[in-house]
């Protein structure tokens, strides 16, 4: 079956090794450094491993709290906003994706193209109008405003993704259930939902990740420091006179960890869904 020569195979593994080192080494280096005491972080002769490992950076970040430097609260805010975004996005994307997969009607192509259009939309353009809109409805400085914007950013892609998953479920299954007397919502939750579960999980994870790392809209729409999300909170630490790199590295790790943990198990589905969607588009 495999007619590739050993030389080519080893070239492949060489490329893979270079890519893995290039992707992972900055994080691993920063991770180890987050356990270093300050004098090992700020040195002209840095080492890969910490000499005297310490949890002091994490202690400073998590325990030395002031109203403007309350990282645990920022993490909680991010979690709240991201979860809200994931739920809203899933509701919209399930409806949209299912409708596009099951019904035929004029204008459907246009709708599908619109999703693509969002991809190339310059989001920077939204800053002023969205700011003014939320200020008009007295929604500035609320997490709800962020959830709405993030849902709008994530939902088109998720709809596209779920559309390809729903297409993979034979309509006959639903028709059979209908013959047996099941109603619309029952059919969706009993038959479609379980079969599309990997897709729904993936779409939810995508929305969560989008909201978790977003910076620009949080910067513009939030004012009160107690409402800051984790990326915004961490970024404001770097604006201070004296930058404390130790706690910053620790904070960076605490932001990465949850999304990597929730993403890696889903990566296979994510790639599959993305690839299916991309080829169709």
């Amino acid at each position, binding site marked *: 079956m495999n007619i590739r020569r050993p030389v080519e195979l080893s070239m492949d593994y060489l490329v893979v090794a270079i890519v893995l080192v290039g992707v992972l080494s900055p994080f691993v280096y920063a991770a180890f450094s987050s356990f270093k005491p300050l004098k090992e972080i700020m040195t002209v002769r*840095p080492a890969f491993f910490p000499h005297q490992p310490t949890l002091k950076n994490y202690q400073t970040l998590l325990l030395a709290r002031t109203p403007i430097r309350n990282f645990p609260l920022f993490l909680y805010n991010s979690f709240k906003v991201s979860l809200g975004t994931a739920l809203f996005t899933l509701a919209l994307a399930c409806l949209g994706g299912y409708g596009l997969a099951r019904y035929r009607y004029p204008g459907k192509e246009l709708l599908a193209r619109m999703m693509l259009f*969002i991809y190339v939309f*310059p*989001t*920077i*353009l939204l800053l002023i*109008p969205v700011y*003014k809109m939320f200020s008009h409805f007295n929604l500035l400085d609320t997490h709800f405003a962020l959830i709405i914007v993030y849902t*709008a950013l994530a939902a088109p892609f998720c709809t596209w993704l779920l559309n390809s998953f729903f297409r993979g479920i034979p309509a006959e299954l639903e028709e059979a259930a209908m013959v047996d007397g099941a109603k619309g919502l029952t059919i969706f939750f009993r038959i479609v939902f379980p079969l599309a579960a990997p897709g729904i999980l993936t779409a939810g994870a995508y929305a969560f990740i989008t909201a978790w790392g977003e910076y620009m809209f949080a910067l513009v729409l939030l004012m009160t420091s107690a409402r800051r999300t984790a990326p915004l909170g961490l970024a404001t630490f770097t604006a201070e006179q004296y930058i404390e790199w130790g706690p910053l590295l620790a904070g960076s790790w605490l932001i990465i960890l949850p999304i990597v943990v929730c993403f890696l198990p889903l990566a296979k589905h994510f790639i599959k869904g993305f690839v299916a969607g*991309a080829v169709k588009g």
Partner: protein
Amino acid sequence: MRRKIIGYLFPLPLLILILVIFLYPLLSTVRYSLYDIPFGAKEGPFVGPQNYRIIFGEPVFWQGFKNSIIWALGNLALQLTIPFGIAIVLNHRLKGINFVRATVLIPWIVPAVVVAICARWLLLPTMGPVNYYLIKSGIITHRLNFLGSLGLAMPTLIALNSWKFFPFGTLLILAALQTIPVELYEAARVDGANPWQCFTRITFPLVGRMVWFIGFLVFVWNYNIFDLIWLTTKGGPGNTTQTLPVLIYRRAFKTFRPGEASSIAVIIVIFLAALGLVYFKLLAPKKEERVIV
């Protein structure tokens, strides 16, 4: 008939959200660009094309325009070539390939804030590990101020941003490659073709059109980036990394001239739309005539 109406109802909530968050702001940006609105105020006097005149008369706008093009082209070059190579390898059947494919995506999901913070620390001029290791390995002879010197900041940022977004291009190109049946390659190998011939005779002709399309997507995607630049250099030093999105943010929320910021936004939209039109209508490879190198 009833089925048709139900069909429209499903995507309706999403459609409303898109209209409110994307389409309405697009229109109101055009309107704002024609008014002189003091920041925080609801309305201001209609001034016609005055904001555009101010913007076009400013060297800082033209520098931003140029920076944006350099930024987007530099990123495009890195994010199309390197991912193409990586995607070809990832498309092969290797041990543990699923793990590798997943790991490759990590830079993409890591928030820009984290990338910016880690990079600012790793690239510090005197205490930064990158400088230390580059000197130790003899690649450079004296310490470089990667993010703080006029000539180096832009290339450094382009490399950094391409590192973060190379998974995106890789995934898209991988998607394109997976449309090619494996049998084609096997047949070619039986006939004695080498890997380079496989690439020029099979891979490129078959996915060239898709890569063409991906190229535009990657260009626009990068053109619109704000957060990574703002979080590392804030457009400095000396405006050398100030792209138009950074300039828009500055105008609107730092110097409080939303009218002028809106006119820059309109210029971006017109520029990208015109570029897309030329790219797809005039320059696109025809479907029939295969691109053969």
